[in-house]
């Protein structure tokens, strides 16, 4: 028995016990024990990933659990990395969830929540370890369904049910694409192992089809535009620790899957694969952040940012695929590393932000930013956590978002070494879109943090808010530490990621491209930097400024009212709102948002010069979603109508159908090939 396999057993055991405890025990005991199992299992997942990545262990296990093929598991660098992603976010969210789910007591089923939470957390490591098509697809389904039940926790709300339905439909459409992709990849044999797929020689047309199907299937899971519609519906209505895990890890399984299929199983492809991934990534990133800007529901805003960040990750992967097709392994590694690094970073800061938003929801019972405000005074620790998450997702140095976005930029700039016209056209546009995305993200998080946590509370609930319980603070604190550490230490993380990718899909095994040191240099890329030194410098300079101000400047300080041109009273109604904050951008991008406006004025009956009330409504409609989904829905409805004719309600008719199908199947099966 090696350490790795022990860890694997601990993962399975802990989650199984956690699920059983959650199902079997009532009240606080079940909740805490379930969370403990989940947390322990996640820590073991993290340990397994770190151990395998650190020692380079390749572990392969086959257990005869599934029919036909058995459960085939294998750890390599890529899966070990995703184990770490799942472990970090899972552990933090489990600790947080132990306290967070307390307020569901007596209202919603805690048993189902605890059990499904453990099932989901168990399915994630299995997912990335899966080594044959059947294991992969079965786990995929378990993961999707457990996430579905978790989304449905608050099942008595209309929006929850609607969101869960959308999620189920889109994810199953994606699943269908995946099944098709794997069937093509394995030449019709659903039991084929990944090793067999790697060595299989496919026609170029088939390979293209597999890639496109995989992009659709995994893109639906990852929330790539235009398959993202379920994401901003499902993430807000799920319990917050579930949102954190779904946004941080579950949608990353799409990234993992795409990487596994396109790079590992297919071994890379023509340049347009990468170009397609880069393109949908850039569009998702930009549209994600643009819609996030218009959102005033804190959790939905974060959900749109998940789309944005998945887009950035896809840009990194796409750039990697492009470079690989041009035979530039060092640059390709840079692109993939940038994508993976951002995956890990996003799991940390987005997990943190969702947990922070959960604390706000927990304290104020509203997700609407227009009713929040001033929480920094009532919930100082949550505010610090959210601020760090906001700065990290805005790619501000020296936090982790900056390190990975810098890498994506470097990868794209590195593309300038390819002397081809299409690259010369695509790369500057991609760089510009990424830059616009990150600029808008900063604006969006100034809004999210500023409106939610600063200024005066805009409602009684916000004014009465209480700081989150300790367990929730611990969950957030862990992720804060992760964000800071990952931001300061790219010189450590990047070579590890490089070695994790080593050997996958023909990438160079030894990652000599990345030199260690506090400032890290990347061969093929065109710049270097050191977040650690930047952070040190900033800290030093702040200290120095503070010190010299103490010494030389006047130190008097007098509290006073906020300056409002001498207005007599200053109330929360006079503050800038989230809508107002985003208004300039809404006007600038009006052609995209197509806002509808509705102004109705009630005049005083006596005179038109006196107004009794003014009502102004404005809403934005994601027109491309309507343009895309309305026809599909109409088509589906039409098809369903036609199919309904088959439904006569007569038992005999149904039996006839079955007989016909049986006969046809027998004929097909017996048909000589």
């Amino acid at each position, binding site marked *: 028995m090696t350490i790795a396999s022990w860890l694997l057993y601990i993962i399975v055991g802990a989650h199984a016990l956690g699920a059983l405890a959650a199902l079997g025990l009532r009240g606080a005991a079940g909740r805490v024990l379930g969370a403990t199992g989940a947390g322990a299992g996640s820590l073991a997942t993290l340990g397994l990933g770190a151990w395998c990545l650190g020692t380079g262990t390749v572990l392969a296990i086959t257990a005869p659990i599934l029919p036909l093929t058995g459960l085939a598991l294998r750890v390599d660098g890529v899966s070990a990395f995703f184990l770490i992603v799942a472990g970090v976010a899972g552990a933090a969210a489990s600790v947080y969830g132990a306290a967070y789910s307390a307020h569901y007591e007596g209202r919603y089923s805690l048993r189902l929540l605890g059990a499904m939470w453990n099932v989901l957390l168990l399915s994630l490591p299995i997912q990335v370890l899966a080594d044959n098509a059947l294991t992969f697809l079965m786990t995929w389904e378990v993961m999707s369904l457990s996430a579905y039940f978790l989304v449905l926790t608050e099942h008595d709300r209309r929006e929850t049910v609607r969101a869960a339905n959308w999620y189920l439909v889109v994810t199953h459409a994606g699943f269908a694409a995946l099944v098709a992709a794997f069937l093509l990849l394995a030449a019709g044999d659903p039991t084929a192992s990944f090793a067999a797929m790697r060595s299989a020689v496919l026609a170029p047309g088939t390979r293209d089809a597999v890639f496109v199907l995989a992009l659709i299937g995994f893109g639906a899971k990852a929330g790539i535009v235009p398959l993202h519609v379920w994401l901003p519906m499902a993430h807000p209505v799920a319990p917050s620790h579930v949102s954190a895990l779904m946004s941080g890890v579950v949608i990353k399984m799409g990234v993992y899957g795409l990487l596994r299929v396109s790079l590992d199983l297919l071994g890379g492809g023509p340049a347009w694969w990468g170009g397609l991934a880069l393109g949908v990534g850039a569009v998702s990133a930009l549209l994600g952040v643009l819609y996030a800007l218009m959102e005033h529901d804190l959790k939905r805003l974060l959900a749109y940012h998940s789309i944005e960040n998945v887009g950035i990750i896809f840009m990194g992967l796409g750039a990697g695929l492009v470079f690989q097709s041009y035979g530039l392994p060092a640059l390709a590694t840079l692109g993939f590393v940038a994508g993976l690094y951002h995956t890990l970073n996003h799991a940390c800061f987005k997990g943190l932000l969702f947990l922070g938003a959960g604390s706000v929801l927990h304290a104020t019972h509203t997700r609407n930013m227009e009713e929040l405000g001033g929480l920094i005074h009532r919930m100082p620790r949550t505010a610090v956590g959210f601020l760090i998450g906001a700065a990290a997702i805005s790619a501000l140095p020296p936090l982790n978002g900056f390190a990975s976005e810098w890498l994506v930029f470097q990868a794209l700039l590195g593309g300038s070494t390819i002397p081809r*016209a*299409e690259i*010369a*056209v695509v790369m*500057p*546009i991609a760089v510009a879109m990424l830059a616009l995305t990150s600029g808008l993200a900063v604006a969006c998080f100034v809004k999210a943090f500023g409106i939610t946590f600063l200024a005066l509370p805009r409602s009684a609930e916000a004014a009465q808010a209480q700081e989150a319980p300790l367990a929730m603070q611990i969950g957030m604190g862990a992720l804060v530490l992760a964000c800071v550490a990952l931001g300061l230490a790219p010189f450590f993380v990047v070579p590890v990621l490089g070695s994790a990718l080593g050997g996958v899909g023909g990438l160079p095994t030894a990652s000599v491209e990345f030199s260690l040191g506090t400032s890290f240099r990347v061969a093929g890329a065109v710049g270097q930097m050191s977040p650690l030194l930047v952070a040190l410098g900033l800290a030093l300079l702040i200290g120095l400024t503070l010190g010299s101000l103490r010494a030389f400047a006047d130190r008097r300080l007098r509290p006073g009212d906020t300056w409002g041109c001498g207005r007599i009273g200053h109330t929360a109604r006079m503050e800038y709102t989230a809508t107002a904050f985003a208004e300039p951008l809404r006007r*600038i991008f009006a*052609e995209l948002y197509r806002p509808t406006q509705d102004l109705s004025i009630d005049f005083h009956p006596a005179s038109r010069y006196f107004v009794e009330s003014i009502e102004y409504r404005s809403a934005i409609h994601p027109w491309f979603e309507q343009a895309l989904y309305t026809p599909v829905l109409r088509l589906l409805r039409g098809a369903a109508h036609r199919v309904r004719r088959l439904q006569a309600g007569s038992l005999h008719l149904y039996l006839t159908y079955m007989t016909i199908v049986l006969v046809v199947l027998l004929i097909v099966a017996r048909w000589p090939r």
Partner: protein
Amino acid sequence: MSDAFSQLSVLGSSLTLIFGLILLWRRGVPAYISAFAAQSAVLAGVAAVVAHFGREAELYWVAALLFLVKAVAIPKLLRDMERRFGTERELQPYVNTATSLVVAGLLVLFGYAIMRPLVAVSRLPTRAAMPLAMALVLVSLFVMISRKKALTQVVGFLMLENGIALLAILGTYGIPLIIELGVFLDALLGFIVMQIFVYQIHDTFETIDVEQLNRLRH
């Protein structure tokens, strides 16, 4: 030596393109006319540069002619027209300014992409500037598509002609003088015809907004 040649030709072409972009950015017709005059002057300069480095004495004549006709005479005529109509501003183009500019940027990239094969096989020192000339042609066409006022369209047409001339100068070191003159005359004739039309439109509709031409159908 030839390095300076290609730098200068690219610089000149970039300038003509930027003057073309002013049509998308500014709203006043006087600014358009100034931009056109400046662009023509730069075009004449490019022709002179090509004449100097390419040792094509004929092109000096083309340069001088270009300068006289396009940088001096036509702008003067245009200003007269503008004065007669008063200031009509391009207030509501079909495509708003910011989008227009981004579209123009994409057109430049597109021009670059389609000229790439030609540039790759060409050995001329001026080859690097040709995509920019192509981009000017595309941008001028876009101006004519997206703007409403007849005068804007006239200037757009003239810039289109400038772009073609630039392409000819860069690509072949000037087509023979005779053909050049023919094209020139053509353009001049076209300009005069358009001028007459604009006057007619103005007299009929009291505006030179070409959107009003839709009314002719009824």
